């Protein structure tokens, strides 16, 4: 079933590409497709964490704020003359800590993920504004900016980073015990607990994964903009949820794949790119994107009912 559903999303992407190919000569060029891949990378990476969380029947609304908070910590560390690796490690640690806070409040605190991450969304955003006094931190060295501007052959660095993240996450989700538990917790948490799985621990780790993914996205975003903005990443949570859901992951948990999420993120990226190329008004763009999200989920529901 999963495979069939994933294939359906892929057909959607192919149709979308074909339509744009017919409508505009600018779409199907190497440089434009590389742009799309690069533009999609940040949402795609955030959506990896979101997929883990949603697979476990949770939700993480704090990802955008964590992108901002870990981004400004990265910026501050770089500005303070820390080596790049240390600065990135600090950013990842901040992301992990935010995720850990989310996870512990959900598992030990017994609070609904929606409420917990709604709180963290505001806390992390406020923290980002507080440590920067609201000002962006900018002007980094070329050796850091390579993370966004670099090319391996003709492939932009963010695309390589995205591919690596998906590879590792895909293996973790499908080939490890942790991955199995993510699905099990989302499918039936009580049954999973009764069969002796340390549900609390694994559930907490899921939120840590999401926090770390946001931090990785923050590194790329900061390099791309050459600036760490405390107001960065607003509404990223909605883009990530959209990519995950378009990709066929069920909001009820227990069902979905990372491949689907990647295709979901690409559909959104291609759509935005295509609408830009066609010169569609930005108001209409929002309607089209919203429509695609609803139609994708509607298809999903209809397919499930048929089953």
């Amino acid at each position, binding site marked *: 079933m999963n495979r069939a559903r994933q*294939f359906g999303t*892929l057909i959607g*992407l*192919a149709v979308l*590409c074909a339509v744009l*190919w017919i409508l*505009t*000569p*600018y779409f*199907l*060029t*190497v*440089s*434009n*497709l590389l*742009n799309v891949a*690069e*533009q999609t990378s*940040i949402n795609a990476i955030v959506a990896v964490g979101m997929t883990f969380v949603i697979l476990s029947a949770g939700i993480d609304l704090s990802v955008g704020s964590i992108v901002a908070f870990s981004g400004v910590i990265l910026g501050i560390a770089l500005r303070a003359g820390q080596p790049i690796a240390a600065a990135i490690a600090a950013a990842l640690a901040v992301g992990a800590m935010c995720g850990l806070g989310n996870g512990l409040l959900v598992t030990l605190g017994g609070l609904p993920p929606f409420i917990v991450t709604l709180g963290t969304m505001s806390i992390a955003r406020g923290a980002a*504004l507080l440590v*920067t*006094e*609201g*000002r*962006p931190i*900018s*002007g980094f060295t070329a050796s850091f900016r390579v993370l*966004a*501007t670099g090319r391996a052959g003709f492939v932009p660095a963010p695309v390589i980073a995205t591919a690596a993240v998906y590879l590792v996450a895909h293996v973790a989700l499908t080939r490890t015990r942790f991955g199995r538990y993510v699905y099990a917790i989302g499918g039936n948490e009580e049954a999973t607990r009764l069969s002796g799985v340390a549900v609390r621990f694994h559930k907490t780790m899921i939120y840590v994964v999401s926090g770390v993914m946001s931090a990785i996205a923050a590194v790329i*975003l900061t390099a*791309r*903009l*050459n*600036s760490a*903005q*405390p*107001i*960065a990443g*607003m*509404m990223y949570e909605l883009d990530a949820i959209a990519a995950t859901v378009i990709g066929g992951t069920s909001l009820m948990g227990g069902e979905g794949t990372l*491949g689907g999420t990647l*295709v979901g993120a690409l559909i959104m990226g291609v759509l*935005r*790119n295509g609408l*830009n*190329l066609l*010169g569609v*008004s*930005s*108001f209409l*763009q*929002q309607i089209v994107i919203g429509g695609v999200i609803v139609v994708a989920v509607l298809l999903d529901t209809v397919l499930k009912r048929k089953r």
Partner: protein
Amino acid sequence: MKRFICVVVAIVVCASCNRAAPPSAGSGKPTVALVLKTLNHPFFVDMRRGAQEAADRLGVTLQVQAAEREIDVEKQMQIVENLIQTGIQALAITPSGSREIVSALVKARDAKVPIVVVDTRLDQKAASDAGVHAETFVGSDNYEGGKLAGEYLVKATGGKARVGILEGIPGHETGDSRLRGFRDAVKGSTGVAIVASQPANWERDQGFNVFQNMLQAHPEIDAVFACSDLMALGAVEAIRAAGKTGAIKVVGFDALDDARKAIAAGSMEASVAQFPAEMGRAAIESAVKVIHGEKLPDDIKVKLELVTKDNVK
């Protein structure tokens, strides 16, 4: 997964074939792109109108694009990248981030697309570090505008005032400049004290709430400077709710229609008018001149005007 890889490979192969035939502009008319911060603000809607009029008059095709949210510089960067793909001949842009947008402008430079910066200046250091050169800057000086507002407030209050300030989003060049201008203008008058200064993030409802809270903490406030009219109008409502209309002088920025009405009605004191349609017009004229190889001055100043009840229409 295998099928997925096949499709990706197929796309890449097609793409490589397509590259042999570089896309052309289609019609003979040159295309100029105008990338705005957003289109859900009257200021930018007016700017687009002015730009469109100029484009029609000069016979160029105008492409207008904007991000959904004013502060979303990453989205704006994507728009620039995408527009470059369509072979535009010139790019006019109101940067959502003075430093951040430079990364996107590097790509425009590499594609040999000349750049006209409108309304919000590029950060000079970031631009020169990246080797980005704007052909010209079209806009009015926000610092001067803030100063105009400050000088007026000093005069209108006879040099004695307790001022509350509503700031824009922190770290935003436009708001910061207006604020600096205002502060510099009132610095010299010892009778004028700024008792509170809080961000209301450019929004009307936040202007209301923030000013209501401010008034709780500082009931002595008798003057307000808001870095935008939307926030000023929020404050006007909060003042009305507190029953202090007329006792507190509100000065805003942008001279929106609603603000002009409030000034005429006496619930607001003044507002600094910019001329966005003028900016849009000058931006497109400049872009066309650049396409024709003309040299432009570094700065094209668009006038500012203080709207008070004496000259409101």
